[in-house]
């Protein structure tokens, strides 16, 4: 595909736009799905934290209720030792969640002789075991589970502890003080406890943690880890000491909020185990414990990433399919154009028979191809026509050229024309225009002493003029050889030409006959430009015009014969209007004045030299402008009679 071609531009523009659309779809999809997932995760995290908290609360509340009920029944001071034992047994057997229960009395409160009285029932290997607490090495009065409710005079959940006395596991104890009437006064009689293993909480939380992507942990009221997937933390670290170890102020602040019993959601980056995570937390109000649910962002957004990856993959596949389709379509559209272009180029280089692709489709390209075919046919027709016309024109031109050659051939061209005659020097030239014209000149002897010379100009141009010129020249010679008088010759020739001259063609003629012995020259003019006479010694002058009608127009016209005498060295310069009307590029005429000036410079030169000088002057004047008329000049220079020459010659010899 060409870089500047339609196909490339179409494809690249469409693909650019579609990739922008694709990118915005993927971006939008990512943003929206991320926000949906975050909302869902928030709901789920919050829900999970609350559900866990309420499940734990439920169990603990039932334990509390049992202990509260027991403490109430212990208000009765008449309970026997056996009943007390039964009570202990029942508590354990009826409440599977209770691990052990102690009914501990104030010193000497149950029996006056016994300082310690605290029966303790607990589970051991699927049966209920019994032991008595207290002794010099276990003075329970000073233990937290006894002292705290006693001093505060209200039920207390102890900080979870690792029980070494009975259960050998993480326990928490709910202790309720009970009172008895003594001296009509209600005084504290002892404390009843319900030990509850926190093992099930740990199991429940780790089950939850396994089901979820993240994990659940629990803090005591002082921030001690009660449950955490990292077993080293449990009971060994508080959230505050842990934050210190990690060097994380934000975790410490979080711990403070959790311990204060708040609920909430927090984004925590770089947590151990889960990395960047969301933390949902809530509290157990009774125990002042706190539950935290941690969701790693990575796991949460895994779905978003997967979804986006799939959307992007689908998009890219779509993009590739689209690209292929567009390239295919664009190429399909432009291929005929390319083919047409190469055909056009071939045609432009002259091969009109170049193959033009078939216009199969009816679209714009098809129309173009059809127009192109029409153009080719027109061109072919035009060229054929042109070839024919050119051939015809060439034939005509060739015939005209031949006619012109024939026309020029009938004029005397050989110079010097009469090398043996020393009495005169004659020279003539004709510079034909491009188109065949009708100028003529001629010179011939009428007899030994009489020499006839003439210049003529037939009206118009082309083949008719050429014919008329040939006829005139022939007539002139025939008539002049019979009648020596120029006026008579012109009159006769005029009559012959005027007869049946429907086209009204005419010819201007200047005809002179010189007696070469005497230099006497008789001449007549039929509307011809006046010639110049250049005397041997002095400035030239116009031969006075006779203003008689051009020949060939009107039968019966008569022409005057004038006589003048040429002295040896005199030159008669006869020309046609092609000389004086020669034009330069600005359409200025050469003019009679310029001709006269030029001829004046030629005193003492030969006839040939005079004509060559004037011809060069005309050429310089026109400066290459196209010549519109024949330029014809004839110079007749009289050198003196044979006798005179001979005398001169003999004289010189003497």
């Amino acid at each position, binding site marked *: 595909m060409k870089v500047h071609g339609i196909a490339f531009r179409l494809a690249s523009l469409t693909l650019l736009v579609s990739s922008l659309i694709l990118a915005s779809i993927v971006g939008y999809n990512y943003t929206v799905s991320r926000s949906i997932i975050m909302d869902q995760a928030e709901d789920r995290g919050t829900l999970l934290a609350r559900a866990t908290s309420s499940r734990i609360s439920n169990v603990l509340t039932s334990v509390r209720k049992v202990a509260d009920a027991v403490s109430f029944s212990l208000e009765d001071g008449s309970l026997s030792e056996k009943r007390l034992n039964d009570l202990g047994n029942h508590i354990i057997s009826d409440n599977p969640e209770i691990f052990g229960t102690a009914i501990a009395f104030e010193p000497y409160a149950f029996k006056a002789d016994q300082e310690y009285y605290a029966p303790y029932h607990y589970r051991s290997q699927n049966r209920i075991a019994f032991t008595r607490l207290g002794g010099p090495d276990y003075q329970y009065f000073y233990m937290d589970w006894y002292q705290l409710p006693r001093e505060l005079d209200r039920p207390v959940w102890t900080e979870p502890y690792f029980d070494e006395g009975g259960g050998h596991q993480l326990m928490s104890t709910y202790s309720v003080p009970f009172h008895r009437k003594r001296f009509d006064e209600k005084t504290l009689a002892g404390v009843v406890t319900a030990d509850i293993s926190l093992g099930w909480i740990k199991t429940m939380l780790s089950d939850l943690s396994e089901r979820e992507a993240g994990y659940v942990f629990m803090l005591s009221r002082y921030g001690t880890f009660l449950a955490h997937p990292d077993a080293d933390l449990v009971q060994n670290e508080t959230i505050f000491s842990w934050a210190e170890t990690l060097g994380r102020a934000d975790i410490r602040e979080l711990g403070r909020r959790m311990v204060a019993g708040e609920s909430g959601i927090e984004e925590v980056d770089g947590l151990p185990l889960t990395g960047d995570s969301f933390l949902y937390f809530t509290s157990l109000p009774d125990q002042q414990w706190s539950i935290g649910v941690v969701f790693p962002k990575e796991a949460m957004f895994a779905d978003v990433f997967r979804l986006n990856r799939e959307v992007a993959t689908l998009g890219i596949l779509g993009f590739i399919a689209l690209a292929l389709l567009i390239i295919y379509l664009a190429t399909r559209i432009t291929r005929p154009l390319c083919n047409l272009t190469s055909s056009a180029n071939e045609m432009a280089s002259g091969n009109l028979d170049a193959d033009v692709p078939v216009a199969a489709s009816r679209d714009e390209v098809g129309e173009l191809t059809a127009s192109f075919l029409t153009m080719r046919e027109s061109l072919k027709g035009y060229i054929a026509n042109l070839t024919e016309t050119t051939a015809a024109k060439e034939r005509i031109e060739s015939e005209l050229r031949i006619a012109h050659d024939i026309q020029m051939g009938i004029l005397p061209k050989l110079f010097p024309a009469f090398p043996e005659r020393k009495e005169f020097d004659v020279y003539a030239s004709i510079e034909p225009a491009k188109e065949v014209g009708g100028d003529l000149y001629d010179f011939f002897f009428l007899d030994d002493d009489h020499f006839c010379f003439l210049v003529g100009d037939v*009206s118009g*141009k082309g083949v008719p003029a050429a014919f008329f010129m040939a006829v005139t020249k022939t007539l002139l010679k025939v008539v002049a050889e019979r009648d020596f008088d120029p006026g008579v010759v012109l009159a006769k020739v005029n009559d012959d030409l005027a007869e049946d001259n429907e*086209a*009204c063609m005419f010819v201007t003629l200047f005809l002179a006959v010189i007696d070469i012995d005497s230099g006497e020259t008789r001449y007549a003019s039929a509307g011809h430009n006046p010639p110049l006479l250049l005397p041997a010694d002095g400035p030239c002058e116009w031969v006075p015009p006779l*203003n008689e*009608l*051009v020949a060939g*127009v009107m039968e019966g016209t008569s022409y005057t014969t004038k006589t003048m005498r040429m002295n040896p060295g005199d030159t008669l310069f006869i020309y046609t*209007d092609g000389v004086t009307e020669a034009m330069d590029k600005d359409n200025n005429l050469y003019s009679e004045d310029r001709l006269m000036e030029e001829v004046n410079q030629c005193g003492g030169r030969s006839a040939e030299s005079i004509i060559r000088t004037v011809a060069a002057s005309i050429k310089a004047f026109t400066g290459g402008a196209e010549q519109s008329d024949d330029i014809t000049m004839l110079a007749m220079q009289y050198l003196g009679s044979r006798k005179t020459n001979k005398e001169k010659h003999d004289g010189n010899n003497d």
Partner: protein
Amino acid sequence: MEITIEKRDAGTLVRVGGRMDAVAAPDFEKECAGVVESGEKLVVVDLAQLEYISSAGLRSILATAKKIKATGGAMKFSGLAGMVEEVFQVSGLGTLFEVAATPDEAF
């Protein structure tokens, strides 16, 4: 070449201006032929605005004159000046036709 034809009571005045050469001459001949064919007996050709006339121009004048003569009419000229007057004089055409100074004098 510019040609204007003006019909007058006494005849038709044909004014010719510009250059009357081999290219323009047939137009002149054609225009005048139209006038002659309409039966006009007197045609006055005013050449006051004519700058140049070639031999082909003269021929077309002669051809027109011949046509008019054949119908028994007459052709007159006026306004000859400069080069045109010279050509008329040299060619002897001035002796062939009646030439007046202005068109009004010719009618």
